[in-house]
């Protein structure tokens, strides 16, 4: 097993990801993912659930993530056309350990979405599984668990949380 990355190395990755997402550079963001990446947002009342037996808000496999990005960059994802402004605050980053060759990381987030002069804040915790691919760390799993008890008044998760 390779040595765990430092917190700074992981923070660099998370901050870069946050910047790419806030700047809507979603094609570049896809480059940060492994080919088998998954992206999940569990339901607010079942935060520890498993997407195979609980109704999630988002449970994308790699095909769906790519389709989601393609849609978001196209004309017809009306919920994000025009694009929302988002601003992500990532904090409390911790490298928790290893799962085989992958690295387990957690961090807190506050993601603000500005749209039609409303500000909605998504608050929660990221759980990442990062993979070593050559010299790089890539994202194999990305789970955003909301602390918000409901998507109210947010209404939707139409961008990449």
């Amino acid at each position, binding site marked *: 097993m390779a040595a765990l990355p430092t917190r700074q190395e992981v923070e660099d990755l998370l901050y870069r990801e946050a910047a790419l997402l806030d700047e809507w550079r979603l094609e570049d963001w896809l480059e940060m993912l492994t080919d088998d990446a998954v992206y999940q947002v569990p*339901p607010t009342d079942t935060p520890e*659930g498993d997407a195979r037996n609980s109704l999630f*808000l988002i449970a994308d496999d790699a095909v769906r993530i790519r389709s989601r990005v393609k849609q978001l960059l196209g004309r017809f994802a*009306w919920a994000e056309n025009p694009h929302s402004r988002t601003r992500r605050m990532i904090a409390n980053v911790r490298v928790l350990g290893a799962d085989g060759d992958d690295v387990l990381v957690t961090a807190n987030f506050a993601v603000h979405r500005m749209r039609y002069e409303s500000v909605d804040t998504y608050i929660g915790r990221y759980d990442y599984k990062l993979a070593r691919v050559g010299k790089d760390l890539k994202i194999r799993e990305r789970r955003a668990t909301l602390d918000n008890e409901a998507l109210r008044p947010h209404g*939707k998760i139409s961008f990449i949380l």
Partner: protein
Amino acid sequence: MEKASNYIIDDQEAGLFRVNRRVFTDPECLQEERKRIFSHCWIYAGHESEVPHAGDYQSRTVAGHPIILVRGDDSVVRVLLNTCTHRGAMVCRQKRGSAKTFQCPYHSWTYNSRGQLIGVPGEDSYSTAFSRDEMALASPAQVDNYRGFVFVCFDPEAQGLHDYLAGAREYLDLVADQSELGMRIVPGQQSYSARANWKLLVENSYDGYHGLSTHQRYFGFLGDVGIDMRAQDAAIRSHQKVVNLGNGHAVIEYQVPWGRPIADWVPSFGEHRKAHFQELRRRFDERFGKERAWRICETSRNLGIFPNLVINDIMAVTIRTFYPVAPDYMEINAWALAPLDESADNSALRLDNFLTFLGPGGFATPDDVEMLESCQRGFLNREVGWSDISRGMKREHPSLTDELQMRTFWRRWNQLMTEPKVRRARKAA
């Protein structure tokens, strides 16, 4: 003009139907709706599968009322109003769980799982007029269950649930019959909202006209995963109907090319699942005969039960209910419904299918919410006073992309909002 009110214009001769946009923005109109609609109609409260064992409960808000859906120690599913009869505090403070009793934390009054008052500290301080029976937890005036769907009604004189549901029962049966053991709510509630009037979501939930335009991205996704949309056109043409089910309920029924987890296999589900689907289908044929089995398995339905329940039996089954907090803001709750006896693999497929389209993170629902919110902002232009819901009005057999289903809702809504309040007087006489 055959019928007109401050709210709608229903000109059947000319074939024009208009809705006054004031009904989406006016706080007084919402006050009237609370009195005439939400306090009078049957409102969906939950599914009996959510409280499978004695003592199981769910606490939630139904039509603005904090309630407890609970299965008593006598196995009866009840709906109790979540307020201590003493001074008002909520006696159930968890979202869900299992309990023998509900104890109010304020003064420790204790109720059993049937809602009976069983403990009052210092009861000897009360006079002989004090009665535990009288102080049991209250219930809505009527509570009833149709095939597992539990409804409440706050009007003691309203017609019973069976008659209220009218033609919608046939369509609830098509959902309930999908399992030999019964249906269950899958864990995980989608709790979201829209900055829009609640009636816009009623319209949207069975609007066949908006699909190709609002949901173009979804059809793009289907193309990406190899589902041929030309087949969709042919399928829709081959079977579609729009039905007024009475009492304001309406449904659209049609065929789709994207497969259903109830025994309608498509290649994107994978060859390894084909045999299992064929076996499921054979079983449906045995139970119901080929024609009904075909209808259960291969046709999709968007069902609107007046006023605020939607059951869409499409790429998965969703139950969706919503309630206006303000004229321009509603809270929405949605669940997935699945057969109790479904295999773990099919259940996972069902949930995966659900999320492609449905829910606040799906590839369609966020765009619906966006459109409703966009309409609500558009209504700020008060100079444009009316919305048009006339499509297909002069057709003998309205199509999926017509608007009969919405007119069905609006006619009932208008009737309840405008009829003179004579019912009680008549009963008293």
